[in-house]
């Protein structure tokens, strides 16, 4: 059976979403057509608006539809604390889980020397001018605990040293409710060497 061209095009387009193969794309397309045309129209409009309207915050480089995002514009947050993360999703995770009241800087990735992604590609010159301005007292390096994330943290740490800014790294170790027996060796050795006084 031949499928109308517009449906074929819709199915093909939906496949650009992560985790969506031909079968799920087809299910989504038919669902919208059969049951939820209004939802489909809204989705189309929202997608268009988001793709054209969302850029990057001038201060922290996270996604934003205004020039300076609401987190950066909030003057009740402490300007002296700057938390560096890899992705906008990390900002949300930290906001939900911690009571952090400082500002953020989003790298939109991490250093990956073999792919040619170094300090310049990560916009670290923007971060450097932030450090140079002298407002930041402490920079919290919350990049992922991977080799690439560590390399990025090291680099920014050295940069902070140049401007006499205190650089701290988030702790990594045993997850809450975890059992030592089942934890991988790398995490365990990190947790062990990073132990601290009980009182």
């Amino acid at each position: 059976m031949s499928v109308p061209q517009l449906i074929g095009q819709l199915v093909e387009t939906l496949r650009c979403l992560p985790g969506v193969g031909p079968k799920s794309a087809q299910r989504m397309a038919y669902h919208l057509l059969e049951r939820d045309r209004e939802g489909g129209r809204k989705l189309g409009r929202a997608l268009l608006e988001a793709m054209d309207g969302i850029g990057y915050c001038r201060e922290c480089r996270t996604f934003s539809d205004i020039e300076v995002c609401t987190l950066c514009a909030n003057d009740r947050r402490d300007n002296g604390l700057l938390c560096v993360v890899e992705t906008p999703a990390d900002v949300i995770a930290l906001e939900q889980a911690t009571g952090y009241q400082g500002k953020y800087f989003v790298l939109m990735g991490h250093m990956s020397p073999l792919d040619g992604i170094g300090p310049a590609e990560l916009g670290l010159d923007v971060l450097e001018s932030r450090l140079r301005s002298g407002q930041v007292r402490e920079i919290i390096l919350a990049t992922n605990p991977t080799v690439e994330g560590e390399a990025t943290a090291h680099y920014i740490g050295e940069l902070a040293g140049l401007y006499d800014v205190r650089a701290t790294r988030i702790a990594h170790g045993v997850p809450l409710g975890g059992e030592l027996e089942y934890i991988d060796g790398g995490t365990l050795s990190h947790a062990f060497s990073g132990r601290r006084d009980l009182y």
Partner: protein
Amino acid sequence: MKIPLEPGYILHHYPYRDTSLLLEVFTRHHGRVGLVARGARSGRSRLRGLLQVFSPLLLSWHARGELGTLSGAETNGPVPVLPGKRIMSAYYLNELLLRMMTRNDPHPELFTSYASAIDRLASGEAGEITLRMFEKSLLQELGYGLLLDQDAETGHSVNPDDLYEYQLEKGPVAVTRSSAGGLCFTGRSLLALHRGELDDPASLRDARLLMRHAIALYTGKRPLRTREVLRQWTVSQ
């Protein structure tokens, strides 16, 4: 073909499909191999923390066609901690291997030199000497070994006090001070590199220059990316 618990290191990884990783690994008995780690990027994957570059691993996979499928991974020793710029040196080793080795071409001796180079970088021993000695053994193992202790034209032993022009892919040729041009080194530097005794700064500098030219011959025109990133790192600080 099933390969069980083979010692190896991950040289590089790329995201593959939605939740998988494509790994370039360097193994002791199978050389460089391309492997797909299914589901390794999903939140529930046990392998996620394990599959890191520079960590000694034991890898198991099914080989079929160009890419194998990873079936298991275990640690094979402590995870090396590479502080600051040393991590860039380690990345440089990986880039050299990726650029100069073809897949499925075993080099057990080179594997040993790689493992010990990573260990030495992690333990904080002289980083630059470690790099030069790895470059030397890389060229040696891949069949591009440098002639260092004999004059390429006369066959005489290299004399520490004479001056030599190094002709790539050929070897050192004795020259006089007035006719010196191109890549010129003292016999002392060449012999120091030959013996692997690079403690004195002049020989180390010469070894660096010679290796840079020799390596460039085999890595092609595209410049090495790690070198560019390291340059940015050094310039900004």
